[in-house]
């Protein structure tokens, strides 16, 4: 067992799970989606991106690309939240939350790609 691989895998899988936690629920129901979860997901994603920086292998490049895509989409979702948070006293309206959750859903896809690459690389090296 390699401590480095544990930490690396932990953050990549954690960013996927937080992303999922935010997306899950009705797409147009603002009460199903917490802004706190979204913010934590962005934070974990950024840490995962940082860990991927500086890897010279082909797989490393692909992992970094997937991570950057997820960052971009999650940060866009957070910006949209800031813009529409005054729609109603409780936060964004149903129409706005659809946009936010769709963006986070795209990030989820990128995170899934990341995890698949991670698993594939680990299985390929077989050691």
């Amino acid at each position, binding site marked *: 067992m*390699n401590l*480095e691989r544990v*930490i*690396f895998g932990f953050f990549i899988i954690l960013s996927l799970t937080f992303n999922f936690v935010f997306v899950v629920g009705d797409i147009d129901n603002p009460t199903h989606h917490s802004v706190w979860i979204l913010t934590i997901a962005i934070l974990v994603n950024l840490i995962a991106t*940082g*860990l*991927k*920086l*500086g*890897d*010279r*292998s*082909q797989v*490393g490049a692909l992992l970094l690309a997937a991570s950057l895509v997820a960052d971009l989409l999650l940060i866009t979702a957070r910006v949209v939240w800031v813009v529409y948070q005054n729609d109603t006293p409780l936060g964004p309206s149903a129409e706005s939350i659809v946009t936010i959750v769709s963006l986070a859903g795209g990030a989820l896809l990128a995170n899934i790609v990341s995890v698949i690459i991670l698993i594939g690389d680990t299985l390929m*090296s*077989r*050691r």
Partner: protein
Amino acid sequence: MAATSELDRVSMLVLRYMRRPIFVLIIVYAIGITGMALIPGMAADGSPEYMSLFHAFYFFTYTATTTGFGEIPNEFTDQQRLWAILCLYIGVIAWLYAIGSIIHLIQNMHFVQALSEYRFSRVVKKITEPFFIICGFGDTGSLLARGLSDHRFTAVVIDRDPERIKALSLRDYNVNMPGLCGDPSEPKHLVDAGLQHPLCKAVIALTSDEDVNLKIAVVSRFINPKVHVICRTTSSKHKEQLAPLDNVTIINPFEIFAQLLSMAITTPRLHNLNSWLVRAKGIRLGQPLNVPSDNWILCGYGRMGQWLHKYMKLNSINPLIIDPDLEGSTGIDRFIKGYADHGTLSDAKLDTVAGIVAGTDNDSDNLNILMSTQVLNPNAFTIVRQNHHANQLAFDAASVDLILQSSLTTGRRILKYLISPHIQILIDYLREQGEHQTEKISDRLIASIGDQIPHLWSVTLDTKHAKEAIDLLNTGHELVIGDLIRHPSKRCELLSCVPLVIHRAKTPIMLPEENMQVYEDDSILFCGTEQSEQLLASTLNNAYTLHYLLTGKDVSRGFIFRWLEQLARNKKSSAA
């Protein structure tokens, strides 16, 4: 002479052929349109009206091409109808004439030839990988093309026989093999086939006419001195003419054949290794033939027989020669003059000999000799010369100890030379070293590859093929060959491959030990499985795998982990 491109020739032919029909069409159109515009028509209200030039052209176009939309814009007057009849006839005739000319042109043999040459040279120009030019697509040529295709090399084929070029296009090669029907000794055809192409690696002259082969070799040397020329010739006169030229290799099928035979007799293990490397059928490494070393009969004393005799003499074997015409032959002391039939073979005491070579240039004679041998001395070692590839099944069924097919041996030798030139150097080296060394290398190959199909490939350690390995060498690390061939998944195991030759600064290093260091620009010849080639190629381009193979430890990936590792190391060193 300025080189005219094939496109110029094709377009010129079309223009010359179509000049008259096009003139006829223009004149007919002009007459019809002018007439239609000059003849007065009648408007719907009865007032006279002239057709505009554009309408006249429109009317004539649909009339001349027999489309016939009718009388537009107004109903025609009788004068107009009269002219319309004329228009119809002359227009249709002019078009028929033009179309007939085109069809005639398409059926013209010279045009078809020019068009196919144009297409061919266009395909050749588009080749983006190194390729070879094969002149002559007979038995040897097609075997060579098949072998090159198996190794994913492109070849351009020129043959005089259109049937063979047609056959070429029906083969299922792994790569594109364009073929041109034409005289390969004509410089224009060689240039069309890509002789001046920067990626053209070699010209191989394999036609049945040796004078043509000589001409191809000389022409290629003049047009592109950088291209390697391989010329098949059996005449010593040609050999003398070509020998002084550098970059020219002369292949004598009879000599190669005799070399192989002598290899089988004197160094059976090397023969076994060689046959295994060229993937000969039914060969298992480590099971050499048990060839008797004396008491032979040699049937056939033509050009091939003379070479065989020469090589047998070099190995101090004095065979009994049987041949119908032995006039003017010197240096033979044991011979029987006559056809090698049952009677002659009985006279030659076939029942007491150890081995027999059926080496005539006639396959049915050779099969007859085999039949007699089976009756008279079933235990004799039989070596047979197969002349035609088509007779393969008959020879396979005859249960011979060794079949040597001239086209096959020649094709394999050339292929070996093109794919991995170092392997022949290794074979020559092993012949000098003796059977002991061959046995050692065979045992290593058996242990490493076993029953899998052997695959030969070369890796050059340069920035294009092994970027990370070069980076490692440039930062002062040492790289030994034994580490490179470790398995990227499990360091303690080795890939199924054996390094055979390291080519460094034009000097080959034979059979390197595992602790042999490698440097930039070394070219290493491996024998192994295709899978191990892929694994090795990816290892050489992956810094992390290389580090693991060298040290057994995984290096940290990414800036943060590297920084953390550095931090931990500093702490450890300060504590100590």
